[in-house]
């Protein structure tokens, strides 16, 4: 068993477990932390796939910025475990069943994809490197790049409109 495989499996299991814990843990702060763990696992996968840039960005943006934002909000509202009233359990069960069966169905739909031979090349290849990404981003992808500024702008305006007292 090759080292990368070991890493792959361990990371996958880590990701899944902590993802489940995100969902089940009573205390919201805990689930934030579990989520961060998920992000780390995923970043690990990125590194395995030799997509260093994304791995870093993932950590900075998600684990760093976004999750901190979440935590701030929690602090702001100082919510603790028992603030969330329990959803009636039938709906809970229904949710779990729905999610599970969704998984089942999609797996069923995708299992017979003839991709046995298709490999995701591990820890080689250069496309994940910031240099290539930058080249493409600022040539072919310049339009979406610029346009997404509009997105941010609108988000900003929106947050201002909503957030500011009047």
């Amino acid at each position, binding site marked *: 068993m090759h080292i990368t495989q070991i890493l792959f499996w361990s990371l996958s299991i880590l990701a899944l477990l902590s993802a489940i814990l995100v*969902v089940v843990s009573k205390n919201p702060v805990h*689930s934030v932390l579990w989520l961060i763990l998920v992000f780390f696992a995923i970043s690990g996968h990125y590194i395995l796939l030799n997509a260093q840039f994304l791995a870093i960005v993932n950590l900075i943006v*998600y684990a760093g910025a976004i999750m901190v934002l*979440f935590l701030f909000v929690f602090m702001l509202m100082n919510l603790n475990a028992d603030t969330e009233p329990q959803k009636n359990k039938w709906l809970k069960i229904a949710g779990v069943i729905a*999610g599970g069966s969704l998984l089942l169905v999609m797996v069923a739909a995708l299992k017979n*994809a003839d991709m046995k031979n*298709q490999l995701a090349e591990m820890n080689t290849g250069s*496309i994940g490197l910031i240099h290539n*990404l930058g080249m493409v981003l600022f040539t072919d992808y310049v339009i979406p790049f610029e346009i997404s500024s509009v997105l941010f702008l609108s988000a900003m305006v929106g947050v201002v409109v909503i957030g500011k007292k009047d």
Partner: protein
Amino acid sequence: MPINYYIFLSIALFCIGVAGVLTRRNAIIIFMCIELMLNAVNLLLVAFSKMHQHALAVTNPNAGIDGQLFVFFIMVVAAAEVSVGLAIIVMMYRNTHSIDVNFLNRLKH
């Protein structure tokens, strides 16, 4: 690594996210679960990009790079969404002192 593994892994993550959305009532947790779903997708995209690169490396060195760039844009959008989303949740919290999605239930039928 066979691509199927990644596919199933990310679908599994995605579905966990979905289950979370369905089972929790805390708006922020729900939102986090959605983020989880997005990350699952990101992982899948990266995996696919690598798969394409592997397949087409000979003809085009940059094959599959679009996938990773897409992930980049998803992160961008996610960030924007988070800011707006949290703003909305905070606004609601201001008015109701609750972030229970079922707390506000005036609009129905």
